[in-house]
């Protein structure tokens, strides 16, 4: 069919696929391990001493420890061992790029190029604990101290959970309607299928001691000064609210979308058949978001999806594994080309024009060679940025920034008294869920120490 048919312009339509196909396309990409598979895999683990995988996990989960418990049939114990260090162990099991984290460090990777499937085992261990009726952690005696957490993403909720466990009373302020942050609004649907993010949020809150105020935004509905006045400490886990602009002609045309906005719609859709998608898609960018929108567009029924990145494959922030995943999903990846302009027809985008690039003296330059890709929709996925406005009073930020994000010390402490921060909104992070969780946990421990002191 492809190409042979003259199609209307722009060819954007909903309900391209049957309900069964939508269901299959957005089901769990990596179905859970069966018990016998898990035991065989767990038994591959050497139970290393001073295991390199533990160091490679930002949250420092006792990986050999939990895997040994799986091997002996102590699955609940394994789940708990994970959640002790990482309360979002369930989503991390699904979304972590393990190929650059724990599994990269696994000694079996060096030995055989085949690491233990740590992520899959982590899911196997945590699923039952998350589904259990009783939350596995109990709160310490109340300290009477109150902490405000801004942002209900992985960073904010990990911080809130740990503080609640330590006996503090926490209030989470979340601008959106739902908690979860990008777990709920951003991560690819097939990684956290079946509303996993919601179930996990409920699990995290079940520890008790966490009050939730959704639809309340810092900067709009309350100020940092209010929070510092009303609470003993404040944690900022606001993520990245802004999107980088393409800064090329035609960006305002209809059919040109921010990838994160479209993904948010997809993640909240009650029925995928309601989502209009083009027949020919161009994605601009080289990170997780670019891969995710490209694959999800394909899975919504787009015919040709081309992802264009301005540098080489090695320079992409999406891992090799993610790139391969996109390619096996039928996404074409073109490297070393930068957008020149988007051209339109009848007000809608029709073509994306690129110029090949090369590196000269360490700088990326256009080679002058041009090509154009027909497009019904163009997705921009060239990165998100931190928006400091909510932290500003009288036009200037109350907090010191570094590289456009909040500057913190090793404990997550900001330049401002009583204020900590973590997750994507801080400088020097990795922009990964697991890093956000670790930031939240570490800040909670620091806040606890400061409140006790």
């Amino acid at each position: 069919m492809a190409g042979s048919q003259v199609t209307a312009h722009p060819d954007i339509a909903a309900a391209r696929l049957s309900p069964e196909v939508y269901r299959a396309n957005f089901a769990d990409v990596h179905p859970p391990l069966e018990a016998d598979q898990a035991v065989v895999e767990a038994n591959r683990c050497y139970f290393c001493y001073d295991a390199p995988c533990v160091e490679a996990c930002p949250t420092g989960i006792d990986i050999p420890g939990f895997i040994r418990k799986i091997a002996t049939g102590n699955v609940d114990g394994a789940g708990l061992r994970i959640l002790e260090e990482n309360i979002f162990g369930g989503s991390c099991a699904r979304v972590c790029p393990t190929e650059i984290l724990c599994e990269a460090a696994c000694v079996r990777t060096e030995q055989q190029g085949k690491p233990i499937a740590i992520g899959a085992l982590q899911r196997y261990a945590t699923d039952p604990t998350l589904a259990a009726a009783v939350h596995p952690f109990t709160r310490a005696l109340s300290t009477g101290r109150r902490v405000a957490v801004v942002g209900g993403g992985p960073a904010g909720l990990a911080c809130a959970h740990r503080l609640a466990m330590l006996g503090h009373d926490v209030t989470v302020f979340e601008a959106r309607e739902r908690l979860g942050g990008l777990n709920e609004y951003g991560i690819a649907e097939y990684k956290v299928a079946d509303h996993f993010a919601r179930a996990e949020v409920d699990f995290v809150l079940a520890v008790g001691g966490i009050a939730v105020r959704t639809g309340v935004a810092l900067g709009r509905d309350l100020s940092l000064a209010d929070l510092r006045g009303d609470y003993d400490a404040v944690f900022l886990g606001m993520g990245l609210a802004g999107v980088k602009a393409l800064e090329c002609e035609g960006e305002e045309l209809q059919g040109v979308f921010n990838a994160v906005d479209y993904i948010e719609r997809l993640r909240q859709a009650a029925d995928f058949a309601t989502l209009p998608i083009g027949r020919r898609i161009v994605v601009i960018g080289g990170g997780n978001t670019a891969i995710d929108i490209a694959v999800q567009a394909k899975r919504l029924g787009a015919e040709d999806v081309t992802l264009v990145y301005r540098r080489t494959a090695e320079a992409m922030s999406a891992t090799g594994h993610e790139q391969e995943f996109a390619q096996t999903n039928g996404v074409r990846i073109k490297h070393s080309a930068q957008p020149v302009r988007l051209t339109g027809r009848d007000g809608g985008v029709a073509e994306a024009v690129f110029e090949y690039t090369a590196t000269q003296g360490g700088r990326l330059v256009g080679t002058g060679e041009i090509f154009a890709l027909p497009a019904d929709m163009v997705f921009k996925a060239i990165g998100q940025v931190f928006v400091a406005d909510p932290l500003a009073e009288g036009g200037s930020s109350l907090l010191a920034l570094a590289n456009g994000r909040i500057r913190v010390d090793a404990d997550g402490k900001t330049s401002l008294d009583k204020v900590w921060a973590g997750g994507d909104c801080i400088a020097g992070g990795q922009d990964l869920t697991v890093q956000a969780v670790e930031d939240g946990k570490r800040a909670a421990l620091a806040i606890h120490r400061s409140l006790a002191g």
Partner: protein
Amino acid sequence: MADLTTRFAGFKSPNPFWLASAPPTDKAYNIVRAFKAGWGGVVWKTLGEDPPVVNTCSRYGATSYKGNRVAGFSNIELITDRPLAINLQEIKEVKRDWPDRALVVSLMVPCDEESWKRILAAVEETDADGVELNFGCPHGMSERGMGSAVGQVPEYIEMVTRWCKQHTRMPVIVKLTPNVTSILGPARAAVRGGADAVSLINTVNSIVSVDLDLMAPEPVVDGKGTHAGYCGPAVKPIALHMVAEIARDPECRGIPISGIGGIESWRDAAEFIALGAGTVQVCTAAMHYGFRIVDDLKDGLARWMATKSYAGIEDFSGRAVANVRDWQYLNLEYKTIAAIDQELCIKCGLCHIACEDTAHQAIASLRNGGGRRYEVIAGECVGCNLCMHVCPVDGCITMQRADDGSRERNWTQHPNNPMAVGASPVDGAAE
């Protein structure tokens, strides 16, 4: 390739691989399938007197080790539960159709001469090649004064063996139970009674596991269990030791041995043969995978023999026996030290933690920058080779010779041994 033809105590078979007396040899149907698959011989499932025994549900237990099934296997089965006449009829037919294979009939009857005489006469009628006396079965039959009840009393073994030799022209193999303190008592008794060969081991008394919900030993029979006979890969080391003890015993010298216990690969078989076995018998591995395993048993053994230039089984049978010594004759001057190949090391740290916690604190755990490095502290290493065993990488940790090979001194000569010949009574200084 090497010739696997086997001559063993008057039996001839195209290869040394026999099926042990057990369910795989229960009836003509199985045995014909086994012969078609290429097995060299069989020991027919043990016959007894009518009326036949009755078996339980369930009958088997098994040990899974780290996801691997049937590392050990246990059973509470008895001897054949089919009428004697049917078995005899089938034996006759099978032997007629498969004249080149060894067909041995296992027997267990009450401990009186008449019973043995009667059944031997019946077996002779079938033209079977010989008999194996089941003195090993650890359950069910021993309670009736048969099986291991006989096999644990050397005098009974000798007596029954002698009866059998008197009442038949067929070669007699005596199958030994491992459920004794020393295998030499029963083995020597069999030799004294005139046995043509011994076979071992039968199953080991065991409780393979406990069902923690039912609070009953496996295999569970209506909520209860009993001790069972253990076999399969887990028992191979026990069997090898017992085979070697007989092979190197002066009183048993020359007695042909059929090795049994945990044999699953040609390598296992080669080890039994190296320790003195002339044939080997297999049960659990066949029950786990079917008769087709014989293909690689034969092929692998023949290829390995060819690489060693062994033309036939007898070329290496018993070759390792002379190297099995009592501990006090091992050279205490032989020294080794562990060496870690840093190129192969994958930094799992298992050698370090094993030596640090449970041996001699002879492997240092070092960090250079982010990297890990494990190094042997030569002065502390006692050459126990624990680290080599726990290391998951083949060839990464090896034991390097540390003495110059010029000295040899065993415990009987050692100054620390008060009974040593010429020991120095004072400070144990070297000679």
